[in-house]
């Protein structure tokens, strides 16, 4: 009996170690992105589904801060519509949203799952085992049980990740971006002639034969029908990205046709010009922080205006979300700190910070002839015609721009704010800035370029 007891202890120890190893070795992106969705006790009013354009382009925490909308971004990288359908079906097992927003990119695709298996893991790794998950995997990966097994128990996939373990793998920390992934790079999509640049390696989408309804379209239809059956409002979107993609016109047509057929709302961001192609993109397809903030702002206004979401800012049950905003702010500022130059400037837009920006030589600075720089300043509310000669110091906040007296604020050593000199060496292009946050008193960021 003692021997068998020993065997039981041993087995339990093995099981515990296996659970630990499974968590430790798995890539944490999925956990960080979706863990809070599964652990959120309260309902979530708006859910977003789509591909990376949506994942990088819609910020739920901004919606909460600015409009009190409780939402979660469940878009996943390169997710075709069938994958989105099952991610949505699974999400609806956990929450009863007022509105589902579906970004229609890849609606002309014939793919069931993303080309890279790692992209699918982003959504499926933390998805709890359920009947829906089983159905999803059987539908999405019909002929490959071996491949499916890696989604039921991702240790099958990640067991050899021991080679790349880092500090973050030992952390249970989750992102407060509520499913969004912000991109802090910056690329100017407008060329010197003022036209849109053409992407060199645009993603190819395998479409269906002409006249046939694509797999993506069929699943988009199923998503709408599923929501309708559950009395959930649907908004279809087509988020902005590089206009040279060959399939976008077909997909917009699919979106508009289905919106009409099912009497649901749709927003074509390619038409309404919310974003600036000079300043708001991280690459040829994805919005950066500034672009995402603009799109999110538009969506917030739209959802509230059409009563598709509720302002929960005063609802006590969402007190934790208010606490999360501070963490969210810290995360976003930490992201911003890693960037320089124009990429950093683009993140100041609606960043809930105040920035003292010094431009050496004022309007005579060479940068003042750079279209991108001027566009970035315009986004931040700066009227470049008001910038005079000599060194200029501007105070930028979300609400306003103040043109300060440079003699009081600028010194050789740095920028003087409230009697404190924030030392900062001058940059090559004559730009220095100091960013402070009222909400995070310990936050000071000094940049020069």
């Amino acid at each position, binding site marked *: 009996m003692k*021997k068998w007891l020993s065997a039981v202890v041993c087995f339990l120890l*093995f099981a515990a*170690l*296996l659970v630990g190893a499974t968590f430790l070795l798995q890539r944490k992106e999925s956990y960080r992105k979706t863990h809070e969705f599964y652990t959120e006790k309260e309902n979530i009013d708006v859910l977003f589904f789509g591909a990376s354009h949506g994942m990088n382009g819609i910020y739920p925490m901004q919606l909460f801060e600015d409009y009190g909308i409780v939402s979660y971004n469940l878009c996943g990288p390169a997710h075709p519509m069938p994958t989105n359908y099952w991610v949505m079906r699974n999400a609806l097992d956990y929450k009863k949203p007022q509105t589902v927003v579906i970004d229609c990119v890849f609606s002309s695709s014939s793919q069931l799952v993303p080309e890279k*298996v790692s992209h699918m893991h982003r959504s499926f790794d933390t998805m709890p085992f359920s009947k829906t998950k089983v159905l999803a995997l059987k539908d999405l990966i019909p002929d490959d049980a071996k491949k499916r097994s890696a989604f039921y128990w991702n240790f099958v*996939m990640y*067991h*050899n990740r*021991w080679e790349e373990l880092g500090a973050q793998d030992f952390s249970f920390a989750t992102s407060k971006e509520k499913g969004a992934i912000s991109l802090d790079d910056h690329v100017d999509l407008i060329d010197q002639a003022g036209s849109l640049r053409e992407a060199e390696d645009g993603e190819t989408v395998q479409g269906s034969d002409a006249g046939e309804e694509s797999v993506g379209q069929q699943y988009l239809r199923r998503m709408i029908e599923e929501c309708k059956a559950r009395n959930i409002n649907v908004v279809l979107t087509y988020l902005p990205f590089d206009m040279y993609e060959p399939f976008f016109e077909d997909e917009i047509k699919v979106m508009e046709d289905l919106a009409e057929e099912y009497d649901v709302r749709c927003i074509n961001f390619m038409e309404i010009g919310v974003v600036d192609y000079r300043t708001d993109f991280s690459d040829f397809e994805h919005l950066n922080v500034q672009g995402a903030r603009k799109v999110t702002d538009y969506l917030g206004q739209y959802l509230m205006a059409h009563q598709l979401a509720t302002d929960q800012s005063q609802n006590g049950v969402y007190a934790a979300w208010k606490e999360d905003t501070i963490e969210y702010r810290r995360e976003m500022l930490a992201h911003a700190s890693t960037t320089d130059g124009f990429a950093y400037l683009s993140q100041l837009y609606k960043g809930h910070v105040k920035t003292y920006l010094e431009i050496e030589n004022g309007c005579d600075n060479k940068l003042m002839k750079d279209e991108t720089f001027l566009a970035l300043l315009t986004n931040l509310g700066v009227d470049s015609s008001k910038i005079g000669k000599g060194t200029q110091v501007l105070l930028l906040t979300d609400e306003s721009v103040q043109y300060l007296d440079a003699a009081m604020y600028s010194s050789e050593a740095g920028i003087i704010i409230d009697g404190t000199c924030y030392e900062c060496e001058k940059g090559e292009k004559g730009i220095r800035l100091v960013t402070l946050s009222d909400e995070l008193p310990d936050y000071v960021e000094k940049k020069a370029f």
Partner: protein
Amino acid sequence: MLFNSLQFLIFFPIVLLIYYFIPHKARKYWLLVCSYYFYMCWNAKYALLILFSTVVTYLSGRALQKAKECSDDEMRLRRRKRAIVAISLVLNLAVLFFFKYSNFAVDTLVSAFGLFHVTLNIPRFDFVLPVGISFYTFQALSYTIDVYRDEIRAEKSFVTYALFVSFFPQLVAGPIERSKQLLGQLHAVHKLEYDNLREGLLLMYWGFFMKVVLADRISIYVSTVYEYYFVYSGMYIVVAMFLFAIQIYCDFAGYSTIAMGAAKMLGITLMENFDAPHLSLSIAEFWRRWHISLSSWFRDYLYIPLGGNRKGRLRKYINIMIVFLVSGLWHGADFTYVIWGGLHGIYQIAGELLKPVRDLGVRLLHINRDSEGHKLFKMGVTFTLVAFALVIFRSAGVRNAFDIIRSMFVFNPWVLVDGSLYACGLSQKSFWLMLLCIGILLASDICKYHHICIRKLILKQDCYIRWAVFALVPILLLVFGIWGEGYDAGSFIYFQF
């Protein structure tokens, strides 16, 4: 079904649980069903070949037994026995030849006639080589010959005999068990014994370590270098040569050890198939330690019947060459295997012929034969000879083998230290893990060489150490093993034989 598959990890516990829950009489039926299921997971139709071999050898055994019991005339009995055993041998070897060697024979004929500018149009057969056919055919034949030699009585129970031929742990890659050793155990009552389970589990752990952590990791490097030998020349190939010797050992010995462990958990003891072969001091010793079940099969059923060393030195050398050439052919239907076998035969004969020269050298240089240094030197030479012969074994063809050997003679020793080896499929960390594991393997083999049983040592430790071993080792195997999604769980190398 591969041992290193999720399928087996589900299959085996179910087999084990039901095996110990059902009455003893039903157990052999259960194991027989499981064994056929195990084989049919790979190819259901080819189970008929095992059945054919089983029926033929079972009936021949019964016929031999009956002949012995009924006949009074010695000469007539001998003739009759010879006829029966000949029928069994011919039928079994015909099946083996047809499925394994027919295309090789056709290709050889066509090539041979081609030398004389004669074109032959013989169609090739389009079928997959049945997994493990050489193993179960040899096992079944050994039974017929043992009955013929009156070493055992013919088995009465067809089910027990069918299980002897198809017992799943050793069905597809050995060890090639002898009827004397296994049939009796299949009749015995096996109680659920805690110690058998523990020992079996430890054996399986070790087997999995050899297969999935070492062999499959080494294979990444070796495959890369052999495939692109024209890029990776010189030291890359020398390293691959030695690593392949370790890989094939770990691959095959790993499989045998898992088989031993699985059988042990069912209460059945299989023979030890490898005994630290790479620590051998000579080629002759190597063959006493490498694939023992096959070497002893050839010794008992081919070398000794050919006259062994009893008919003079020349005949002995001829017999050695015959055994090694046949052994090479047993490993695969290609001239690379035949040359590999032949090379081992030459090693042995040359070793004997050069003995006086070696003795003279030892005397002149005042070398102490018992010194550790001398043993280490002999071990190194033996390992190098074995590894070199395996270059031919591993190559895709004879011409390819010679190209690889030629590529080996490029002077680039710096690749051993400048990190170039990490560009051959294994990352730096994985490469170092491989070296660490080879160190563990070496330590284990040294213990085995000195008759120290690590399993018993572990089982003697206090509960903390035992628990740590039983719970932690499988986790380490899972983490550091090469398996799972994205990995084509490479077939065990010896499956093709």
